[in-house]
Structures are given as structure tokens and as C-alpha cells.
């Protein structure tokens, strides 16, 4: 069960994409009017 649910705000974190570019959360959401964020185990 996900703790984050509708109405919650994404927590702050700094990740990298597979090209090594830094991605700042939640700043990244400002890049588009909507974002689909999909957590996956890998190999889908």
C-alpha cells in the first residue's frame, strides 16, 4: 500500500536519470502541466 495518496505532495529528493542528469523533486514537476510518475520494479 502506497503511503503517498491523492492530495499529498511529493517529497523532496534528488535522483539522476539514466544519462546521469540530476533530477530534482519536486522541482521536476514544473516542467509540464501534468506528470505521470510510474514506480516500477524494472524490466517492464
Amino acid at each position, binding site marked *: *500500500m*502506497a*503511503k*503517498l*495518496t*491523492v*492530495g*499529498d*505532495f*511529493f*517529497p523532496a*529528493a534528488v*535522483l*539522476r*536519470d*539514466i*544519462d*546521469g542528469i540530476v*533530477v530534482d*523533486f*519536486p522541482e*521536476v*514537476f*514544473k*516542467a*509540464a*502541466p*501534468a*506528470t*505521470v*510518475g*510510474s*514506480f*516500477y*520494479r*524494472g*524490466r*517492464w
Partner: protein
Amino acid sequence: MTAFVYEWERYLEGNVQILGISVEPPEEGKKLLERVTRDCQEDRPHIPLDPYPVRLLTDPDATLIRACGTENEGHWAGTIAAPVTFVIDPSGQVKWAYVSGSAADQPSLVALAKAASAVAAGQLPPADYPGK
């Protein structure tokens, strides 16, 4: 989510960004991207995957995954992300969520697209396409 990668242009306009988050290292993400692109070119050559519609992010320590409560600690491979899909607005607020029961349990592409398109338009996701 492979189906989503194949079909995203049918359902979503270009103003929706798609982020995929996992614990996998960058090299595994690149292999995934190459594999899906190759298979798509073979199976559905009319679909361009350039640029690849999903920006793959790596969270090797599961920092964001745990902060969002989407961790699966009991997997044989170690801590991985449980399959969960969110639609988020520019302020970082979750507007729609689908918590999958398994990797095979994925949201309807139509429901996901309707939720994302509504949020992109500054509206609430339609009530007749709820998450889970």
C-alpha cells in the same frame, strides 16, 4: 508499462511528461530502453520511439521510493519499487493514483490518459475513471 510506451501518443498529448522510477542502475535502464525500442521497431514500426517517451530515473538506494511509501522490501532481489502510478500537477501534488496489486496489474491506459489530460488542463481527473 510496455504497452503504455507503445501507445502513449494515441492517448496523451505532448505536454505530459512521463517519469519511470526504479532502483535499477543506469546501465539496466539503458538496456531496457534499447530492448523496448528494438521490439517496437520490429513489432510496430509505424510507432516512433524517438525520443523515448519515458524518462527513466534511477533511485539505487530507494530514497524517493521509500519516501513515497512505494517500497517492496520483501522481494527476493532486495528492496525494489512496488508498481504504483501517480498523476502529479506542477506544484507536486498527487491528483490521481493507481496502486497495483502486482506487476501485471496496470492501470487502464484510457483511465491514466484521461486523468493526465485533465490535470494538464488544470482540471480534476474525471470521477468515472478512478484510480485504485
